[in-house]
């Protein structure tokens, strides 16, 4: 058998059921790996006592023959999900030592399914970023390095800690969230699988809000099957989130391996960017060939408003963020900075000291586009373009069942490499943002390496609430790609 940290989630599940390994052994191996690879800075908080207690309880359940779907599986939770009694920071100074007295619905579901809590993973502050360099707890290091180059690379963001932890084998899977690509882009940068499900599939209750009409939770895992197993347990209707969809949750795992024979795959011409790296184009063509070989048919489609998705996003998301982040006032929880004066001075001093540069920029942009006299020109205009972007997809679904695109315009970059200005960083999400605006499911699957030996991902988009087709196509790509490269920095 592989080392415990080298197992996939599905393999660990089988090993636990067959009693070839105990939940305690599995937890201990992962805790040791986290300690050994501490310099990746993938975790903000590690919870060893909780992990061992969860594992002991899981072993008892397994012994009694009462194992639940994720019994004894060690997971990491993005530190954007509130966890009862465990510090939850959103990687921001402003949340200080906030210890939630409640549990997010998604993490509660995972614990109810028997999962073991290893701790909370690092992220961009308030999930705003594409490189995990905006965290108040320091940047995360990508476990992958360029061939012959020892420089640290970014893991992508905002779920950079979750992606790095999964890639480096510090956990069997992790929760993440995706507002404009924050699951799929870091998954692509770390050679892992990440799915953002349909808006409404996972409850947002107890997840620190960034942009409420775009935020969705999803898993990052090492295989398509593992992602399907996790997503099933994370999904489901929650009366505490009014946007949570009251629809049945299919057995996503059953969709994996069903094949793509007869499926119609769309290839949108607008995703072919000027000056796109030839390797990205080649990977895309390879993906098309794999799906054709597996029995799918390929269709050229048009999503005419694609190029307006990013600017639309950078109105909608900051606008919602400026409203959501108004709650951090230094009064009820989190950081308080008092420099004398009145209540307004308290607010301004607290928020001035508590928010990092990127969060502050987005709050100011959001405040501006919502301010008197500018609302129609910016916010209303963006909502109209958003409608056109959704309409493009609705049109496409008349002729195709899924859409294939690259996941990112490049592989992982070094810290500081793409940070000349905020807009350059925003361009990382050019392929992922449209799915958030339209509320559609999207997955990133590791599909190959670039010339420097870094992983590249392909993205599959599907109809609303049709994650099953997304998983079918992703599994076909995974099987054809046979991606078995490993990051340089990893446990066993």
């Amino acid at each position, binding site marked *: 058998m592989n080392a415990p940290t080298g197992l996939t989630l599905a393999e660990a599940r089988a090993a636990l059921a067959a009693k070839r390994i105990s939940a305690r052994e599995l937890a201990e191996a992962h805790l040791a790996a986290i300690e050994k690879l501490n310099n990746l800075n993938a975790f903000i908080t590690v919870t060893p006592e909780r992990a061992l207690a969860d594992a002991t309880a899981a072993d008892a359940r397994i012994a009694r023959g009462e194992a639940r779907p994720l019994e004894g599986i060690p997971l990491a939770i993005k530190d954007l999900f509130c966890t009862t009694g465990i510090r939850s920071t959103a990687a921001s100074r402003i949340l200080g030592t906030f210890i939630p007295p409640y549990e997010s619905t998604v993490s509660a579901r995972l614990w109810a399914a028997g999962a073991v809590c290893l701790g909370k993973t690092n992220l961009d502050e308030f999930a705003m970023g594409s490189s995990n360099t905006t965290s108040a707890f320091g940047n995360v290091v990508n476990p992958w390095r360029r061939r012959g180059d020892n420089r640290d690379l970014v893991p992508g963001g905002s779920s950079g800690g979750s992606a790095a932890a999964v890639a480096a084998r510090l956990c069997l899977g992790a929760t993440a969230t995706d507002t404009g690509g924050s699951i799929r882009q870091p998954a692509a940068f770390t050679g892992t699988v990440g799915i953002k499900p349909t808006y409404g599939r996972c409850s947002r209750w107890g997840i620190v809000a960034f942009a409420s009409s775009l935020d969705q939770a999803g898993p990052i895992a090492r295989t398509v099957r593992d992602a399907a197993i996790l997503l099933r347990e994370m999904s489901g209707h929650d009366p505490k989130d009014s946007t949570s969809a009251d629809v049945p949750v299919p057995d996503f795992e059953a969709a994996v391996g069903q094949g793509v024979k007869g499926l119609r795959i769309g290839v949108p011409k607008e995703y072919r960017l000027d000056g796109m790296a030839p390797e990205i184009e080649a990977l895309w063509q390879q993906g098309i060939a794999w799906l054709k070989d597996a029995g799918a048919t390929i269709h050229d489609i048009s999503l005419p408003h694609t190029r307006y998705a990013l600017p639309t996003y950078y109105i909608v998301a900051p606008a919602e963020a400026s409203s959501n982040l108004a709650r951090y006032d230094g*009064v009820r929880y989190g950081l308080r900075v008092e420099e004398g004066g009145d209540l307004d001075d308290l607010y301004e001093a607290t928020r001035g000291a508590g928010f990092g540069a990127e969060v502050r920029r987005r709050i100011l942009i959001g405040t501006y586009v919502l301010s008197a006299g500018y609302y129609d020109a910016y916010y209303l205009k963006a*909502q109209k373009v958003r409608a056109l972007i959704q309409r493009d997809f609705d049109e496409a679904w008349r002729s195709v069942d899924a859409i294939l695109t690259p996941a990112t315009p490049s592989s992982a970059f070094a810290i500081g490499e793409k940070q000349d200005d905020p807009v350059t960083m925003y361009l990382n999400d050019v392929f992922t943002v449209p799915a958030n605006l339209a509320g559609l499911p999207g997955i990133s699957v590791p599909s190959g390496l670039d010339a420097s030996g870094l992983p590249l991902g392909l993205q599959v988009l599907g109809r609303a609430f049709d994650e099953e087709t997304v998983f079918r196509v992703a599994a076909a790509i995974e099987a054809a790609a046979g991606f078995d490269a490993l990051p340089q920095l990893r446990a066993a």
Partner: protein
Amino acid sequence: MSLDAETVRRIAALARIRVKEEEVARLQGELNHILAWIEQLSEVETEGVEPLPGAMRMKLKMREDVVTEGDLHDAILANAPDRADNAMGSFFAVPKVVE
């Protein structure tokens, strides 16, 4: 549309974020760069398009307008940066707002 320094100060005040005077010029540059990039939306024809506020495809559910939880005084105050406890109960404490 381009922001002047005074508008940057006004937005920061609206957002209740203290911005040091020496930061205004840099922020002005960054915000104007982002806004100039966003400006490309003006070339999209949106006449008669119904604005889309969210990606939700089903009607929002309504629930009974009743209290679903309560008596969580201690939990609610547990993270308070400052609190006041007196004969009337326990409260969040803030600087004096009424003279």
